[in-house]
């Protein structure tokens, strides 16, 4: 127990990333507000980034940093388009509840 508490190794960072990914997944699955779902996706991307940076440090290779940088850029693009979709949906129907967006289901 004390070993886990005081000897922080690479496993700790990987477990932190896994827990963060889990919380992001929970946000996507449980919440019904489209904005919170987008935030959950951002959390999942960040968890993937932590894993990349951890392995990059482990192997002494900066390729992981480059990839994490590209992931951040993709996340920014995804956030802007996602928020634009949220604004467009809100303009049409005055709420952003994903449970009520069932027009395409039939």
């Amino acid at each position, binding site marked *: 127990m004390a070993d886990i508490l005081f000897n922080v190794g690479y496993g700790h960072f990987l477990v932190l990333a896994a827990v963060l990914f889990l919380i992001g997944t929970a946000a996507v699955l449980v919440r019904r507000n489209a904005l919170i779902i987008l935030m959950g996706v951002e959390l999942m991307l960040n968890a993937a980034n932590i894993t990349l*940076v951890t392995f990059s*440090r482990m192997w002494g290779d900066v390729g992981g*940093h480059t990839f994490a940088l590209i992931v951040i850029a993709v996340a920014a693009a995804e956030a*802007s388009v996602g*928020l634009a979709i949220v604004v467009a949906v809100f303009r049409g129907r005055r709420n952003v509840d994903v449970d009520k967006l069932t027009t395409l289901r039939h």
Partner: protein
Amino acid sequence: MRIVILIMTAVLSFGAFVAAASFTPAAYADAIPESKIDAASRAKVQERSPHDDLIQSSGKGMALMFWLFAAMTIGGALFVVTRRNLITASMGMIGSFLGIAAIYMMLYAHFLSIVQMLVYAGAIMVLFIFVIMILNRPEDEPVAPTGRFGQVLGGAAILYLVGRLCMMLMKVQPPDAAKAFAAPGADAFGHDFGTVGSVGTDLFGNGLFAFEAISILLLIAVVGAIAIARPLHEEQSDEDKQKAADAKGGAH
């Protein structure tokens, strides 16, 4: 909530006490054996900066910092899931991003840490808060209603899976155990691991195609975001149509 804060404070002060009690300057001095250090790169770093380059990211001080920032990251993420108020959720998100930036710093990813703070905590969250302010809707119920039995069963299954995953991840071994936690500058990779220079060299070398693709992607995203969010001219009739569709969907 108060209980959780109390427990966290107790754990952190215990960790601080242990770290302070066991602190000796000699523990940092023998971080990397002299024989392990490449002489040429050592000379290079001495030439560049006069201070000693023997700090490694291990020991009780780092453990304390890790648990502090991990608690910040996880707590902020939990705020996103549990809070009904959207502004509170986004503030928790910002705290989570700042914790992640500190975690990057701990992993010697200096440049990425700054980018995380600038792009995520700065730009993306400002965008989110703008949209929250525009929409200005009170929040709905956070948890979708399901049966109590299903919740317990699903929770137990998720806890089991995550526990097994964590046990597996904790056993991950670095490729070279001898210098696993040494400062990355202490070997032949050079002393600029994770700085703007090394990341830029790799980005414009190995990742050049990805970089160019990202520039096109960002351009498409900007144009697409403007095209999607632009107000429609027949807004009123469109809204009426949606209402009619909702009524029809509810009848099914």
